[in-house]
């Protein structure tokens, strides 16, 4: 280490004070409901090489470890003191931005006339323009529907604010004043960072500051390496999905309308490193769930589960991008995890959450004695809107639809919330009922929905709303795990999946699937049940010493639930993988989303009630793409039953 152990700790504290102060400035002065209610904003300090060396821990929704900052930094280089950059462009920032409502700003920080670091911050704006209020919709098929795109631009040029840029950006949104306020709050935060860094440099000198930055990253890297080194070397695999949309054909039989998004992880632990291969992941999709990662192996939305895992086991670890240095990754180009330019991305959080499940599942195999089951795997935000007789529109953000967490070694899962969206606050039901004409008939735990196990999954929530007047619209995005249940581990049962029902038990009872938007009439009852977490360990071991952490005989086992088992039976994993590979290999990038969907739907229909076989796949591929050039793709894998 370059620094003394004392200077290192003191400077770590001082850096932390800078990012926490920036964060509090933003929290206090920004307008956005996302900042106030969900803490969806962040701040950090970055080295000139683009690594985060300080990030706040008190801001719960803060996802800063592993942000790819290099592209944004390079985009406006060279800098002058007082410059501030702004962008919300995923492509131009190399995956720093992952969806358009996140307005990122950054500034070079100078000491002795040289740039020694950069300060970054973002705020999730309530609206950034585009086709729908709030700018986020699962059905967007083109990034231009998602709002105004701001390529990296100097918002402040050597201390001179460019009012034109600010006007241009804010004028293209539905809440210009709020956005102006949020951006100004960020500018103030970035300026504070320079002032505080000046104080630190004055007390400790540039050399000590540079040394501490490097040492903090090295320390985090070393401790992450230590933890990875404790895992058994090996390769661990898991596949999970964002669910598609099932409908019914003209003849009334069920059929797939939107295919599920396949997410595949092969985690290879070797020594003190981990390689995450996402080969086999769906090509990018037409829906707005694509996750722009900029091909960055330690991207914050890929590494979050691993970072959490390290932090939870070693609370004293420096919280910086050194933690993701031991990671390498294969992110197939043009896949949903590394999509091409212009891929719609508003609801990318769904993929982010499912990647966490994949990582947790692979870790469960890498260290079976500390395996965890997965939680609800989804966070849905509901909006209830209503236009009264007075013509005044009202919108209320309903209860966050989070579910239970999975069973943990030595502990049951938490009820009603999990590490995905655990930062969300609910709305007092009294306020909700005062804003929109609904009666909340139930807001309670969904008893028994957590998977049974030695350590049970936490229960989900039940939210029942009785509509009191006609003309209430309920819109929800982010519901997942309707069919594919949160899985259990090592004998633990899966948790119950999401269920959204209109008029349960009544004459007009209807399953609403992942809902989207539903219009309610006076008297209607809408009930949403969120998933319970998966259970961990054999229920028979509950309360016994045997329930303590121990490696299960025969390796880690997952209980995926009947729907997933049936799906795997009908669509064998080998066939799924071949379909993904074939599209990637044989279709030009621009055509893959459509080709993958068309092929998937054609195969699903061709199989009817039967199984999707290699032979069917070969036929479909030949019909759609012609005979493959080179080696034949149809190496049957014994799934000819």
């Amino acid at each position, binding site marked *: 280490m370059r620094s003394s152990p004392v200077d*290192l700790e003191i400077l770590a*504290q001082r850096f932390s004070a800078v990012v926490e102060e920036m964060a509090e400035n933003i929290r206090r002065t920004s307008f956005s409901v996302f900042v106030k209610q969900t803490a969806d904003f962040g701040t950090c300090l970055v080295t000139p090489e683009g690594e985060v060396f300080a990030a706040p821990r008190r801001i719960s929704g803060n996802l800063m470890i592993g942000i790819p900052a290099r592209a944004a930094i390079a985009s406006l280089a060279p800098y002058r003191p007082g410059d501030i950059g702004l962008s919300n462009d995923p492509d131009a920032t190399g995956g720093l931005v992952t969806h358009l409502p996140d307005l990122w700003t950054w500034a070079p920080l100078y000491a002795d006339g040289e740039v020694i670091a950069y300060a970054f911050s973002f705020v999730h704006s309530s609206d950034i323009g585009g086709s729908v209020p709030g700018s986020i919709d699962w059905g967007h098929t083109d990034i231009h529907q998602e709002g105004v795109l701001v390529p990296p631009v100097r918002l402040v040029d050597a201390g001179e604010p460019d009012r034109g840029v600010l006007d241009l950006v804010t004028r293209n949104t539905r809440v210009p004043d709020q956005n102006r306020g949020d951006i100004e709050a960020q500018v103030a935060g970035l300026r504070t960072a320079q002032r505080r860094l000046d104080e630190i440099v004055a007390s400790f000198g540039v050399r000590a500051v540079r040394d501490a930055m490097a040492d903090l990253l090295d320390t985090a890297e070393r*401790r992450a390496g230590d933890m990875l080194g404790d895992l058994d070397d090996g390769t661990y695999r898991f596949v999970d999905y964002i669910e598609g949309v099932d409908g019914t054909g003209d003849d009334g039989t069920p059929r797939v309308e939107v295919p599920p998004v396949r997410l595949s992880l092969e985690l290879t632990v070797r020594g003190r490193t981990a390689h995450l291969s996402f080969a086999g992941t769906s090509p990018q999709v037409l829906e707005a769930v694509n996750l722009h990662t900029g091909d960055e192996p330690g991207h914050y939305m890929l590494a979050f589960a691993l970072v*959490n895992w390290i932090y939870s086991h070693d609370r004293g670890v420096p919280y910086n991008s050194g933690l993701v240095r031991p990671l390498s990754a294969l992110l197939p180009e043009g896949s949903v995890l590394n999509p091409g330019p212009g891929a719609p991305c508003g609801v990318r959080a769904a993929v982010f959450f499912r990647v966490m499940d994949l990582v947790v599942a692979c870790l469960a195999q890498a260290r079976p004695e500390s395996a965890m089951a997965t939680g609800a795997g989804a966070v849905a935000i509901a909006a209830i809107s209503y236009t009264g007789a007075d013509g005044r529109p009202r*919108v209320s953000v309903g209860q966050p639809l989070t579910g239970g967490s999975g069973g943990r070694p030595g502990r049951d899962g938490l*009820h009603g919330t999990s590490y995905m969206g655990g930062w969300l606050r*609910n709305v007092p*039901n009294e306020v909700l009922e005062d804003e929109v004409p609904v009666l909340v008939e139930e*807001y*309670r735990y969904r008893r028994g929905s957590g998977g049974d196990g030695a350590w049970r999954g936490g229960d989900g929530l039940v939210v029942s709303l009785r509509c009191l007047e006609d003309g209430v619209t309920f819109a929800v995005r982010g519901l997942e795990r309707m069919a594919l249940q949160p899985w259990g581990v090592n004998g633990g049962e899966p948790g119950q999946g999401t269920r959204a029902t209109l008029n349960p038990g009544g004459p007009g009872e209807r399953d609403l699937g992942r809902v989207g938007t539903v219009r309610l009439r006076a008297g209607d009852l809408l009930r949403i049940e969120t998933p319970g977490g998966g259970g961990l360990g054999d229920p028979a071991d509950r309360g016994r010493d045997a329930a303590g952490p121990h490696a299960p005989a025969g390796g880690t086992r997952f209980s995926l639930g009947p729907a997933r088992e049936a799906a795997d039976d009908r669509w064998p994993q080998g066939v799924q993988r071949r379909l993904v590979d074939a599209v990637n290999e044989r279709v030009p990038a621009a055509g893959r989303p459509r080709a993958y969907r068309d092929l998937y739907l054609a195969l699903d229909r061709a199989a009817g009630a039967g199984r999707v076989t290699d032979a069917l796949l070969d036929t479909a591929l030949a019909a759609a793409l012609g005979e493959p050039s080179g080696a034949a793709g149809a190496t049957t894998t014994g799934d000819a039953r």
Partner: protein
Amino acid sequence: MTPAPRYRLGVDVGGTFTDIVLADPRTGDLRSAKVPSDADNPARAVVSGVRAVLDEAGVRPDQVEYFSHGQTFALNTVLQRSGARVGLLVTRGFPDLLDIGRLRLEDPIDLFAEPRRSPVAREDVREVSARVSADGREVRPLDAAEVAAAADDLVASGVEAIAVVFLHGHRHPAHERAAREAVLKAHPDLPVACSSALWPEEREYERGIVAVLAAHVGRALEGYLDHLVRELRALGLDCPLHITKSNGGVASIVHEPGEVLRAAVETLLSGPASGVAGAARTARAAGTDRFITMDMGGTSVDCAIVDGAVPYSTESSLGDLPLIIPSVEVSSIGAGGGSIVRVDAAGVLKVGPRSAGAFPGPAAYLRGGTEPTLTDAYAVCGYLDPSDFAEGGVPLDAGAARRALAPVAAALGTSVEEAAEAAVAVATAMMHAQLVPMCAQRGVDPGGFTLVAYGGAGPVQAALLARALNTAEVLVPASPGTLCAYGALATDLRTDVVAPAPRPVTDASLVRGWEELEARARAWYAAQENALHPSVHVTRWADVQLEGQSFTLPIVLPDGAEPSVGALRTAFARAYRKAYSVDPGEGALDVRSLRVGLTASSRMAGHTAAGTGRAAERIPHRVVEGGEPREAVVLRRPSLAPGTRFRGPAVVTAPDTTVYVPSGFTAVVDGAADLRIRANDREERTERA
């Protein structure tokens, strides 16, 4: 013959010590005492301490005109969950109200987070079918038989008190009242706490917690206070008796059952609030109204940031429970004199988060502690003086401190002195790192502020923290060890009341709403023993947001302004610009609650120090600075006359605390015997000015 002089008594019962301050309100002269607290019978320590102070001062009990008491009994009862087993009656469909809370996890990235611990066991919850809608329409009537059956059932299973929380009870309390009557009819002696009666504010979870805490603590607090009152009367005190509240004020000790429940929830955070009240009096008397209080004990530093007015929060917490009753806003920093010093796995020097607490405490206290603490580091650095520490009540063995720190020094490869100083520097950096965002939250820069240091360790650490924060000055009050007790006797009578905002909000409805609240506050004042608190001041405020927003701002109606929608809008626009830096525009106002705060202040002279008439002795001493031993001096605080000025490095010892003045700082004793410490460059600027 002139009447015998009259005196006032303030008492603060803490975990370790019970402090007593006796004041002469005409001269401002103070006398104080500290006696060990008695956990089994707190009143015993109070009585013996009071008797000792009176005897020493030659004051008869009947000369005491006022007694005010701060206690941690209620808070400890909640933290230990040792009060009544509470049953909850709640609206059907919400059996998990207290468990779900506001949903948010304290640390959402901790995979091993513990679940929230509901103050009512799941099996002690009964759902009640009565229901009203937001506009007060009765969806289902209250069924008294259903409620009575639920109460019977709960009592039979061992429940000792009942809390009632129904949706919209704050605005439509009839069902809660009827439920209470139904319970009392069958169980007349059972404490029954209604959310609507105690704190009628929107937000069912937080309001419900108020009711549950009242039910949990009420009867126990009543027993405690009854006993104390009997003992004090037996001692001969015949004056009005008061109790300190979380809002920094006091209230008379009253017997009526509803008032006991109210007192139970209004006094929970009174300890730190009294400290801030005492610090605020001291700071204002010293001419500053922008200061940060710094109360440093064994496990934490409690801070309040006072930018003009003492800050109030309606979002306080007790452990993991929220408290929405207005309380002096005090934030805790997790480092104290007992924080453990260690070198972590990566070889980095850390202070805390573990603390040796009061027991075993620092190694230097010779109570069996072997792990090095921050106090041990102070001792090794010479920032404490073993020959004059806590009046000899606690030993301070620098040798034991050195032995405890030796392994840390070995791990760092430094001398023990260097290791000790490094630990202090790390602690300072931690406090700085936590205090800076607190200041940012409130939009203040600590640069222009004074640090008011008290508590056992505050004055040792304060100048070092001031240097990191670049604050203007450190103020160490004359009696920093008994500031809470002083605050208790010097503070105002104060009450806060709340009501849902009227619908619709018009000039007339605002006038009426605030009038009703003011009438309630004045009725409260009339029921107090208020002879010594004649000057009443009423503040009207409201929780306001723009329609469609979900975060209210507290809006104070300026004194003298006529209540009107226009006046509220003007005040809102000002507050809005301050909070968000943008104009609120023409959007409709959404007023959620109206509030009234009533304060009635007492008249008391500020105390002035008497000069001792001789120059203070400067005893040679050594401290560690910059890794090296340096010549310093020790001064005995009681011998310091007003006007005494000295430069650091210096250590000032006193019966209740030790003050460290580092190199680069100058200390001056002011006319009130407060110690004012400034960095020399600031000092020189001031002198030139």
